[in-house]
């Protein structure tokens, strides 16, 4: 049985003028890390708030841990851990005070479930007398995660937990989530705007403007990418993007780190032909090679369709 089940959820704000969710459905299985991947404004936070019983959907139904989000919201509130997108702990209270406060709010004690948070809390324990407002971004996330975990929830909802956190802490954070899943079979629903983090999830939903572009394992989504993807480089990277887009036969082109990723209609344009055209427009040291598509490429590709 699915631990989280969402059917045709719709939600709009401003009396229907802004549609945040345009009918999304998905299921999350126990012990799964499910990722909601999408840019800002895709509707991730709205979806989280509906699942954590904080707001009501306009239409559609959803259940968490077997309980209905509307009728049985009180039961859900006992069994979920929620970490909102914004750091929302008491900045004027110390690390220890925050943790013990949330433990009592959930009718438990730090000692009772210490094993769950041990690995995470150990890292911030040296600072337990420090006020939460004075912690670094990474430490704040660890404290927030500890507070969300302290009552041994059945499902963990993490809204953009890695936003505003340095790359090292981000990696560490995903490591902790993997460990929680492995050791305690915890179901985690997590959202992120970073496409490179998608691979950490068991299954992902690519979201855009309130709709799901695709729901699958990251591996399948990449495997479904049917086109050949080319990485293009030259000495004038900025102009190259415009030139690529203007070249007939180039289906798509976008900046991707140090190179530009492009798909090409090979019936119309060969790679040699492209090189020649680019040389004509003044580009030097042109390098075109095949690359493996990433989730971001898949997102771009799906977005276009």
């Amino acid at each position, binding site marked *: 049985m699915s631990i989280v089940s969402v059917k045709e959820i719709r939600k709009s704000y401003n009396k229907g003028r802004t549609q945040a969710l345009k009918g999304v459905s998905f299921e999350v299985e126990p012990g799964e890390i499910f990722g909601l991947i999408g840019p800002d404004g895709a509707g991730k936070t709205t979806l989280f*708030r509906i699942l*954590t*019983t*904080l*707001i*009501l959907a306009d239409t559609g139904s959803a259940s968490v841990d077997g309980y209905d989000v509307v009728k049985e*919201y*009180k039961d859900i*509130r*006992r069994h*979920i851990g*929620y970490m*909102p997108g*914004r*750091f*929302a*702990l*008491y*900045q*004027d*209270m110390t690390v220890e*005070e925050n943790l*013990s*406060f*949330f433990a*009592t*709010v*959930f*009718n438990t004690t730090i000692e009772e479930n210490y094993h769950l948070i041990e690995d995470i809390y150990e890292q911030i324990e040296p600072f337990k007398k420090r006020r939460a407002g004075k912690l670094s971004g990474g430490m704040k996330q660890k404290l927030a995660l500890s*507070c969300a975990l302290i009552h041994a929830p059945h499902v963990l909802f993490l809204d953009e937990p890695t936003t505003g956190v340095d790359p090292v802490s981000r990696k560490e954070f995903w490591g902790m989530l993997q460990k929680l899943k492995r050791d305690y079979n915890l179901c985690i629903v997590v959202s992120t705007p970073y496409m490179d983090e998608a691979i950490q999830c068991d299954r992902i939903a690519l979201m855009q403007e309130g709709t799901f572009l695709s729901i699958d394992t990251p591996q399948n989504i990449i495997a479904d990418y049917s086109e050949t993807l080319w990485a293009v480089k030259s000495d004038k990277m900025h102009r190259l993007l415009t030139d690529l887009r203007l070249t007939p036969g180039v289906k798509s082109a976008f900046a991707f780190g140090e190179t530009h990723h492009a798909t090409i209609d090979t019936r119309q344009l060969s790679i040699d032909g492209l090189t020649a055209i680019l040389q004509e427009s003044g580009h030097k040291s042109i390098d075109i090679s095949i690359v493996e598509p990433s989730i971001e490429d898949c997102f771009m590709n799906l977005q276009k369709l």
Partner: protein
Amino acid sequence: MKQFASFVRKEFIHILRDPRSLLILLVLPLIMVLLPGYVIKSEVKDIRVVFLDPSHDIYTRQIIDRLSVNDYFIFKGYVQTEAETTGLFRKGEIDLAVVFGPEFASRLLHTQDASIQLLADGSEPNQAGMRVAYAQQIIMAAQKEIQRKAATPQLIAPGKGGVTSMNINVESRMLFNPQQRSEMGFVPGIVGVIMLLICCMMTSVAIVRERETGTMEILLASPLPTIDIVLAKLTPYLCISFINLMTILCLTNFIMDIPMMGSFTTYLLTSMIYIFTSLMLGLLISTCVNTQLAAMLISLLLIVPGIYLSGMIFPIESMPTAAQVISNIVPTKWFISASRKIMIEGVALQYVSLEILALIIEGVIFLLLSWKFFKTRLE
């Protein structure tokens, strides 16, 4: 219960770790009581007085003596003409002139139309009024003494013209506040405003703060019942209001020597009901807004006109009818009215039952409205 206690503890931590909150909650009330009570007393002291006494008889001397030995008056000598007094007023050397009519003693005894004119500097109307009223009282007392000694039935008739003349009707106000002490009238009003600031403004800000900083999101997604959240938020402010009430009572009783004429328990009961009503108003405000700034502004928008309509500064009886009607919805009005009756007039509980009933009704209405508006979700 443990959840609740821990929540209340957290609330106290918030208050104790924020110096600005502490300042408003604990220091501001003291300043508000001490400032009008001690520093800017509107009572009159050291009234410099001159006398114009053409008849120089036994009765005028008696009255002059009485005024001169009084602590509140400073004898500044005699003048010969009214023009002279005007000059002294202009120079700001005197505050009051007592002008006896001609042939004072004989008129007093025979024609019964002896007159005294009290001249005061009308450019300070409040103080002038009080100086005159105080002088009138002393003259009245002197008159009674003369009356008793001479056993003459009718003595002094009101003087004619001048800035003011003797006026008996002031006596009714003097009855409870013979020295026209301003702190006495002030204290009930100040307590009323302090409680509004703490219970209404600070409480609504504290509740809204959870919403503004995003912690409400976590609290709502937790098993903590919303009623617990609200009660736990109210508790510290209830305690602080009570502490302030006690401090103010001690201050006024022991340091400022303002006596509590009525029963202490009655006053305490009335105050607790008023605190309840204010807390409910604060709660109501918090359910209507989403930012601390908005909570603060709405509270101030309610408190400031509330002060004017409460009768603290301007007597309600002298307001236009519309304002009088509106003043009935101001809880502070009922509280001030009740506490003046208890503190100054010393009446028993049944005489303030109307005020208490009004406060309870308002508190319950605010409670029900908050109940209706309070969200168990974010929107």
